[in-house]
């Protein structure tokens, strides 16, 4: 195949992959993997000069940021967490109506005295007096957490990075509270955690995104309009 006019990165596994495929299918541009079933390249029926790259949801953010692909589909939470200068790098073209997840601040349910972000600074003061250190916040969203806590004036904490089973860390004693995603709240509830009243950091869902730092010629723009029109219809 000759050089594609436009490259779009889509998630290579899980719910995001299925939902993206269903969306393209419904729009009349069926996504096809080229070569064997586990390949990492694909194409869209009816748009032969579009190349599809299957890659991880996190990697799609890096590809967009670096301008190595034109379009991408991934979660807003990953974009906002990873790209510091997001406005200069990436355009949010359209929310896609799936992959809903809220990034929230959650504390143990037994903290009856705590319901808002403003309580955390007082708790940090008390905790430092009795335990000799600040509160630990377990999360994989270190940048979102830092920005949100700074905006709320909470400083007496320290982030411990957590890549899996974050919601179990307070009970295990490796953190005091967490910042994590939740869609139904079931996992939080099962771990006896509650979301703070003003603890919603981001209401995230899958987005169609465009890289700013990539060559956009007339054909690429035309294809972008076609795909945007088809997916947001």
């Amino acid at each position, binding site marked *: 195949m000759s050089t594609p006019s436009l490259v779009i990165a889509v998630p290579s596994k899980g719910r995001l992959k299925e939902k993206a495929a269903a969306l393209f299918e419904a729009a009349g541009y069926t996504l096809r993997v080229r070569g064997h079933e586990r390949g990492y390249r694909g194409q869209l029926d009816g748009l032969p000069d579009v190349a599809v790259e299957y890659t991880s949801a996190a990697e799609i953010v890096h590809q967009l940021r670096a301008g190595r692909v034109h379009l991408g589909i991934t979660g807003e939470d990953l974009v906002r967490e990873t790209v510091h200068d997001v406005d200069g790098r990436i355009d949010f073209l359209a929310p896609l109506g799936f992959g809903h997840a809220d990034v929230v601040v959650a504390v*143990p349910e037994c903290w*009856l*005295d705590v*319901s808002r972000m403003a309580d955390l600074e007082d708790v940090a003061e008390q*905790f430092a007096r009795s335990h000799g250190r600040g509160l630990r916040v377990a999360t994989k969203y270190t940048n979102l957490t830092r920005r949100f806590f700074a905006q709320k004036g909470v400083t007496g904490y320290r982030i411990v990075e957590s890549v899996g089973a974050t919601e179990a860390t*307070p009970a295990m004693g490796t953190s005091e509270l967490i910042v994590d995603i939740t869609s139904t709240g079931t996992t939080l509830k099962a771990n006896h955690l509650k979301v703070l009243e003003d603890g919603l950091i981001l209401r995230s869902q899958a987005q169609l995104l465009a890289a700013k730092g990539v060559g956009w010629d007339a054909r690429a723009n035309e294809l972008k309009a076609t795909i945007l029109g088809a997916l947001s219809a």
Partner: protein
Amino acid sequence: MTAESAKAFEALEGQARDLVALFGRAGYEFVAPAILQPAGVFLDQIGEQVRARSYVFSDLAGEELCLRPDLTVPVSRLYLERHPRAGEEARYCYNGPAFRFQPLGPSTMHPREFRQAGVECFGASDKAAADVEVLLLAVEAVRSAGLSDFRLCFGDIALFYALIDALNLPERWRLKLRHYFWRPPSFHALLDKLAKGERIAPNGLVTALCEQLAGKSQAEAEDVVSTYLQAEGIPVAGNRTLREIAARLLDQTADLYANTLPKEVATVIDYYLAVSAQPREAVEQIVMIARGAGLDIGDALGVVARRCDLLEAAGVDLAAATFSTEFGRKLEYYSGFVFQIEAPGMGETEPVAGGGRYDNLLTALGAPCAVPAVGSAIHTERLLAAVGRASS
């Protein structure tokens, strides 16, 4: 100029050799603590703001490490390694790199890798004398490097604590104000609430619990909380204890039912934090504020005055110095005297040297008893640049 060229490197090395030699002659032993520090111990003391600017990483064994963002904590740890019982007096000096991420990108005035040369004095019981000794050494050091025109700025954290102690406040408010002092935006929001006589209204659940807790003791409060949790099927999980949760609910109960604090308290704190003047004049202003409010902070003011006497006796021109009550609110481990040396043309966020007293840090790092400690560090790249500017 992060020693990234050979010439800059040699100039910095030459300056550092002279500084360390001067510290050595003053009785400070040269030490070279580790550049890689355990992140946990180190960063628990320093707060998330500096952590956000520290290079933190996990090594192949999964240990969380950092490139030291300053040398005071590493030198304090070294002191404790040598003197686990923390009883001895010791004076150390150092010269070496420290690292901080610069959000706006590294620059000459804000490099991400910079060299600190400095001194730390542990265990000296005459605190005012040790404060002055360290400050004079920093002054002599920048002078000997060729900087003759500079400005001295001081503050004293202990004076603020003395003011808070002298004010007629419930203990929970005292603790709160001490803690918030290090977080100026939240502190001002809190003072504002005080000044307007606003109550901090808790949510429905807390209000309902407070009704049950009014007039209760700590033990009774724990029973109420425990009963409630059991009824709701909520386990007590995590590091924060039932005792702590009940204690804070009692504080919230007290805030809900107590009279709001008099506006005068907020006004006195506001007046105090606005003082910034030549040191003798600043002391006079603070005396007036204290007298006006009927507060006795004579002891803490006496310490400031004695420090001024010692500095003047050593030939420091106080008329050219500034004492600011707001000064030193950035690094939470400071506990008393704080100072910095500023060169002409460089802003207050770009001091060539700075330091202060940190009497609580060593216990936080594991010392079995309190260790009075005071130190100062020279930002050697800035000093070299300031000397270069002054001579060109």
